[in-house]
């Protein structure tokens, strides 16, 4: 069944009657570039190649929608295996699939259900693939729950853009959900606002101060954090906590419950313990369906030019009625990924390198973990390798102003980020 001819032959007469109503005729708002009829159908069904990142809650929905819409060459990447708690929404999986790779099971299901569609799974990390791999696609749709993975693919696609080669611009459609809420957006790398441009829109994860956990617990969450952050390493030393291991959750639950009793705090439950240590986000099929549909609808409109596409952000809140907000998120000139300008930072002349690192870690629009700092040939502080860390460590206590003139450029790197951040330091 390989090859586009084999695929096309699986189209039975009338198969695309619904979609062809759109593809046969332009609408009042359709761009003149639309090749109504055979031209657009040939591109969609025989040429377009699309990558789906994530085969979980959003990914299952995205794959089904793309297949029904007529995309026939679909690739999917996911590094996870199927868990029982996925089955309330990840509808391509059954109880017998628990433990299997999501990408593989999802691909097989789609190919069985929707004849003539080729879905190529990859069970692994997006970081395993190189630029050449990403170059082969016309579009990328992302349904991920990881901020880090999204930042990686966003930066990779922005870096891929070669102004001389129009093909190098890969539209990135990104979706995300939490409970009854979600968002979908279209990113045209280097042209529109990118994922990094909007980092400050993310909710700050709730972090409990260590002194509260250790000395003045008030909430059941404080007791659970005490068990996982302080007691686990104390009792188990080097053994890593595995939040997927029910025995480990049982241990944490027991220890947290004992602490809660001691302090007369109510409300430690197994489910709360698991929720806190795994940072569980509520997820339901219906919200995933809305956001995945929004993503795939944009992919369809971009691939076919059959209608204007989203510019560029759609946000939905379904807790109180159906509230949505569609707006254009602005590109940031000082975005470390797509902006080109360095980030202006004005600091006190007394600020030490260590304090600057803390400020960077705290900054909501950067969200960097363990940054290394350098300026031209000066290595200000490097987190790794250990020898260089040791050599640069004394700089931590030095004032930044001793090391850098005002207007000095600092390059910030971190192992979790596929790009460098450029800071322009001035003193107050």
């Amino acid at each position: 069944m390989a090859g586009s001819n084999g695929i096309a032959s699986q189209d039975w007469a009338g198969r695309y009657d619904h979609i062809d109503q759109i593809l046969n005729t332009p609408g009042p708002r359709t761009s003149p570039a639309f090749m109504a009829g055979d031209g657009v159908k040939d591109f969609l069904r025989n040429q377009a190649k699309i990558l789906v990142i994530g085969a979980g809650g959003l990914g299952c929905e995205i794959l089904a929608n793309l297949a029904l819409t007529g995309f026939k060459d679909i690739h999917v990447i996911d590094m996870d295996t199927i868990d029982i708690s996925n089955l309330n929404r990840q509808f391509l999986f059954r109880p017998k699939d628990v433990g299997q790779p999501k990408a593989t099971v999802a691909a097989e299901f789609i190919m069985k259900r929707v004849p003539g569609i080729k879905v190529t799974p990859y069970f692994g990390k997006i970081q395993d693939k190189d630029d050449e791999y990403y170059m082969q696609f016309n579009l990328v749709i992302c349904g991920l729950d990881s901020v880090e993975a999204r930042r990686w693919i966003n930066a990779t696609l922005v870096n891929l853009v070669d102004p001389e080669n129009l093909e190098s611009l890969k539209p990135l459609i990104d979706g995300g959900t939490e409970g009854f809420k979600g968002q979908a957006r279209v990113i045209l790398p280097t042209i529109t606002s990118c994922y990094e441009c909007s980092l400050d829109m993310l909710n700050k994860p709730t972090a409990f101060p260590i002194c509260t956990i250790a000395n003045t617990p008030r909430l059941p969450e404080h007791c659970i954090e005490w068990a996982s952050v302080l007691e686990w390493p104390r009792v188990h030393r080097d053994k890593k906590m595995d939040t997927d291991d029910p025995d480990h959750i049982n241990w944490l639950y027991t220890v947290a419950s004992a602490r809660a009793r001691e302090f007369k705090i109510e409300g430690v439950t197994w489910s709360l313990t698991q929720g806190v240590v795994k940072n569980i986000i509520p997820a339901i099929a219906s919200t995933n369906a809305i956001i995945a549909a929004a993503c795939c609808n944009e992919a369809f409109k971009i691939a076919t030019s059959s209608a204007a596409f989203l510019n560029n952000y759609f946000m939905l809140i379904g807790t109180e009625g159906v509230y949505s907000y569609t707006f254009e998120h602005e590109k940031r000139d000082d975005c470390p990924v797509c902006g080109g300008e360095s980030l202006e930072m004005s600091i006190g002349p007394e600020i030490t390198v260590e304090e600057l690192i803390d400020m960077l870690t705290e900054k909501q629009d950067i969200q960097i973990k363990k940054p290394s700092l350098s300026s031209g040939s000066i290595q200000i502080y490097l987190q790794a390798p250990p020898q260089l860390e040791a050599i640069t460590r004394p700089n931590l206590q030095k004032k930044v102003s001793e090391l850098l003139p005002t207007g000095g450029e600092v390059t910030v790197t971190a192992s979790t980020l596929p790009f460098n951040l450029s800071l322009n330091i001035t003193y107050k």
Partner: protein
Amino acid sequence: MSLTESPEIISAQPDSKTRRYDRQLRLWASSGQTLLEESRILVLSSSATSTSILKNLVLPGIGHFTILDDAITSAADAGNNFFLEGPSSIGKRRASEAVRLLAELNDSVTGEAVTSTPVASVVSSLNFLSKFTLIITHNLPPSQLQTLSDTLWSSPTAPALLAVSSSGFFAEFFIQHHPHPIIESHTETPPSLRIRDPFPALLEHSKSLKLSELDPTEHAHIPYIPILIHARSLVPHDPKTQEEKNAFKTLILSLKFKQDEENFDEAHAQAYRVWTPTSLPSSLTQDIFPHLDTKLAPPAIPGIMHALLTALRRFTEREPHVLPVSPGLPDMKASTETYIHLQRMYKDQFNSDKEMFKSLIPPNPGEIPDDLIETFIRNAHGVQVFVGEQWGAFDKDVNRVGEALVVSPKDTSVHLALRAVREALENSGASEGASANVSAEEIKMHIVGMLPPDTELGEEIDKAIGEITRSPTADLPNTAAMLGGLVAQEAIKMITRQYVPQGGYCIVDCIDMRTGIVGL
């Protein structure tokens, strides 16, 4: 594996059902899940949109669904519906194929296909319809939808109706329901902490604080609530003018021993609570309390619910005209002892308010479970009664439609185009899903008929007509999936009686990728 230093590990891992539903139980808890599992859903179609909606209801675990549809799977159905098996389903009963493939998603859900009864014969059968919790339709011909709506509107205990309509990139849906009480609305507005109207124990405790005599550690761990009430007792009256408010804030900071006492910073930030009145939500005082003896009297709402709302009204009629205290306390800078002590005070007051509340419940409706009373009081500040109107009532009032077109031209134009295309398709005798042409003139004629005489149609109407005539019968996979999600969300909110459903017509425009509301 041995886990040392914890002799009695509690093995409390939840059962497999709880694990399967874990991510949704965090939204609607076991109370919502039970209602979901008891629900029976009737869907009058097995189109791509209908199966998308059902998928999102079967997965979280409704009890039962029935698809009533006599259609035979066409080539086009097999191409756009994920719950058909491609060419091998062509020629078979579409509802039977869909039920088989939907039921696979969840072993605990039962599904039934009714393929021999025409839709027209059930839309007027209150007896048949009343076996279900919720009725969902997709692109039902307007005359049948009107009959169905009339039937369900005629009885206060008849199920709610979720009427869905779509063509190409456009869609809308409307929930027709009788007064629908919601206890757990999950409002983001927290309950009052009663800082302005402290209950006696809280007032006594706060006034008696000898802040200046505390040791520095204790002083830095007094929660902001007693700090604020204590500070209030130091000034002659509630701060009113901006100067008095600023002076009050300065007073709070002057009570600090040391600059870095975060509890006083919290008190400073929360100072507005001292002069902000503890007003009752208008969702109670305007939308519920005045109507309890009239339009919300049973059987409009269930007797138990009516009794609880009546008790709440009576409770708030007493001084100091506040809701019962909620036992939940947000986290704040405090030592464990002071925080737990404060929490205890709120719990004690909650319990005594609960006893008072119980004494105010009218005797008639019979036994009300204690945990229901507790849930009701805990959520009293967010309690709502969602009052609806009949499907189509908006459209019969040309003046309302005319006004809507002025206020929200885009959404109203999409709504009118969808209403018009359903009429036109019914008039042409086209069966659901089959290709059919409708002319722009015909759509325009229907739209003009729904508007006041001499209404200027405008550009948005023209665009909507252009788009709807492009794809009048297209059930696009993405639009279907989008509706599948939106409609299932609303269905879940109706069934679980948690969160707040949408009133009016919810309009979905998948070109601009926006939603809007018409006819609220």
